[in-house]
């Protein structure tokens, strides 16, 4: 097939593509156009997404929508277009080289895994043509490149096997010579993800360094079988999720109805062990304080692995809106376990005689000038210790009505998680 004699119809605006003489990219461009014309597609129903590499300068010749992005990312970019259009009538085609396929391997596998509605044409000439003929991740063993004059010592990826294993509906490898528009047409007609690896040779580097090179032979030697591989899968569909209209409307509106005895902002830290309900207890306290007409802030601290080590919560309560919510020096520190003590002991050591530490009676008394209140918070079990310590704290300080915390548990429908009756009995 002489590219320059091909009749141009709707898809291309020229048959003189911007590639070196003898470059397989010419054949891919022209055969792609022919395949799309065979499918009788409107050019504006086609989105051509090109990668970086010699092939990527072909956009100008196409009458389709064209998108020219970053090196290796074209498949992910096209995936986004596929998600957005979500329309099998729109044909999304990616042109990418063996270099881009190496950089963007994850993107190819991901699109195949999801079986997105799109087609990828890998222009595999076994090397990086645009940057001077270096080896790529797809270069077969023994193939000579500018960076492997004795032949590539490594094994190249088999992009077809990988893509097939990832779940693509259709994968094919062909020799990129002559008229292969039927194979392209078949790939473009697939519902779901299709990838077609076109083996070709770069006239500037591949031919010169491998003068006896024959595509068929190198493919055979490299185990790059010519063929088609299919998975019987459904194309991507958005999952049926029940989305809600508003997160704000789901919030419980608070109706303050209890009194409080707070004169100025109080800063409280509650520290215990992960898995012992510290954050839940803090949220109940915060809710109860709000029911008592107070502004509150609540912030959790814990290690990255949330199930082990300390768990701490900083709570501010005030009759005025709270601006700064950090706690340098707490008015009250409530400690329910050794993890909590270790985490908070630096702050406790700086507390003064105007401040108070409520601490589980099993723990050693930390160095501090603060007042100490020792009590057996863990007698109700580790899971309840944090909430129990806050209930005890409210009883002792009377900063707001004890009833508020009971209401907070009830309004938040936490009675199945919290044995209120038992906790109240233990306090009284």
């Amino acid at each position, binding site marked *: 097939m002489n590219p320059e004699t091909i009749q141009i119809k709707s898809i291309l605006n020229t048959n003189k593509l911007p590639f070196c003489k003898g470059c397989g990219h010419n054949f891919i461009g022209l055969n792609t156009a022919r395949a799309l014309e065979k499918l009788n597609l409107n*050019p*504006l*129903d086609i*989105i051509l997404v090109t990668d970086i590499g010699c092939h990527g*300068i072909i*956009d*100008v010749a196409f*009458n*389709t*929508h*064209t*998108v*020219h*992005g*970053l090196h290796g*990312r074209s498949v*992910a*970019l096209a*995936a*986004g*277009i596929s*998600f*957005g259009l979500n*329309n099998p009538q*729109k044909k999304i085609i990616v042109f990418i080289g063996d270099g881009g396929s190496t950089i963007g391997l*994850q*993107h190819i596998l*991901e699109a195949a895994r999801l079986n997105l509605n799109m087609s990828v044409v890998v222009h595999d000439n076994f090397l990086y043509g645009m940057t001077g003929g270096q080896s790529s991740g797809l270069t077969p063993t023994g193939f000579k490149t500018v960076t492997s004059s004795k032949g590539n010592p490594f094994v190249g990826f088999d992009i077809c096997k990988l893509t097939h294993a990832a779940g693509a509906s259709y994968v094919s490898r062909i020799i990129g010579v002559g008229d292969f528009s039927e194979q392209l047409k078949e790939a473009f007609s697939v519902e779901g993800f299709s990838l077609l690896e076109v083996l070709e040779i770069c006239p500037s580097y591949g031919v010169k360094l491998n003068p006896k090179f024959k595509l068929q032979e190198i493919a055979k030697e490299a185990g790059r079988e010519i063929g088609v591989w299919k998975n019987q899968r459904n194309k991507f569909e*958005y999952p049926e*999720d029940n*989305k*809600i209209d*508003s*997160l*704000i409307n789901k*919030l419980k*509106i*608070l109706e*303050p109805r209890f009194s409080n005895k707070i004169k100025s902002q109080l800063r409280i830290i509650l520290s215990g062990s992960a898995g012992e309900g510290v954050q839940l207890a803090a949220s109940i306290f*915060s809710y109860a*304080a*709000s029911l008592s*007409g*107070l*502004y*509150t*802030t*609540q*912030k*959790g601290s814990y290690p*990255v692995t949330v199930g082990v080590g300390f768990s701490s919560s900083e709570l501010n309560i005030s*009759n*005025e*809106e*709270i*601006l*700064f*919510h*950090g706690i*340098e020096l707490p008015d009250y520190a409530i400690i329910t376990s050794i993890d909590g003590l270790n985490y908070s002991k630096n702050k406790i050591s700086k507390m003064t005689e105007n401040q108070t530490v409520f601490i589980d009676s099993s723990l050693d008394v930390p160095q501090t000038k603060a007042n100490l209140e020792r009590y057996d918070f863990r007698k109700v079990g580790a899971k309840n210790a944090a909430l129990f310590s806050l209930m005890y704290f409210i009883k002792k300080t009377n900063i707001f009505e004890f009833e508020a915390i009971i209401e907070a548990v009830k309004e938040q429908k936490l009675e199945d998680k919290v044995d209120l009756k038992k906790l109240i009995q233990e306090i009284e």
Partner: protein
Amino acid sequence: MNQSNKKLAIVDASRLIIEAMKKAGADAFIGYPITPSNLLYSYSTQLMPIMLPAPDEITTLQWMSGLSATGKFPITATSFPGFALMIESINMAYMMELPMAIILVSRLGPATGTATCGAQGDLAVINGLLSGGYSLLTFAPSNFEDCWTLAAKCVEAAVKLRTPIVFLTSKEEVMTYKTFDLNKLEEIKPVKRNFYNKDEKYFTYKPNENYSPDFLPVGNEKWQVRLNASTHNQEGILQNIAPEALENTLRLEKKIKANLDKYLFYQYLSDNNSDILYISYGISSQAALEARKIAKTKGKDIDLLILKTLLPISEKYYEIIKKYKRIYFIEENETQILQRLFFGSKASENIKSIGSIGKMISPEKILSESI
């Protein structure tokens, strides 16, 4: 508290940001979970019409770009390690002029740093993010109201200016629960997407009067759309260094600067008799507000400028600053990032930073270092 006319609830800012952006027109969330942005991710799962879990943050930005090219408005939320992976793709989206919002939740760095500790260290990265020094519009909420109204403005600005925008917040802002009056949330109207519908040929990058090109999604059946991340002409054709193409690249900066006043948000609190100015943004602005309040009880007036449109730095900020004898930048880092953005590496003696790492800056620290 005075409870009359209040609609109180316990809220976190992550919830406000996601809902506000959705109301303004965001219809897709793409992301990879990373602390401390996980609440934004999980709320999006419940709320966003399109919610896609990406396998990494490079893919995130690429999928977002593809969605944006089709006329959707995608958002994501991440923190520095994920943001670092997005940088090349944000450059792409900027060059292609694709509207989107990236919510960046700062945590303590460098590198992985401490995932569960807040910080304000990412401004340095955003400022140098675009190759060539171009301006990436960046908003920073300072309180819960901003997390609502400014988040909506973020969507509006991104659409009107056809650009990606960074919404810069921090762990302490999006992971703290507060009693909040929901009546403070103003109504948000969706941003109108006026896609190009004229009979004259469409040029993807032909600017209108505000330097911003009309938008038309790929896949439309009327006009060809050519998106290009390489240097390109108005049609979207790769052009090496042709004058028209370079002019198009320079337009990107003009677009942001010429429209900055429309999207310039700040809070300036002045008693007109102070010679001290605090400048802050984000979470630290609350400490600055409280420090100012405490100072007033002690008979000392201090003015405060809270920056909400953070980048590019507006000339208006300099006009305010020049009135003061002493200026304190209050930011949660120890490398004076904001101060250096305003005044370079060597500021005059009357300009100082009050910083912190590993913990929030307290009002007491601000006061002890400034008066």
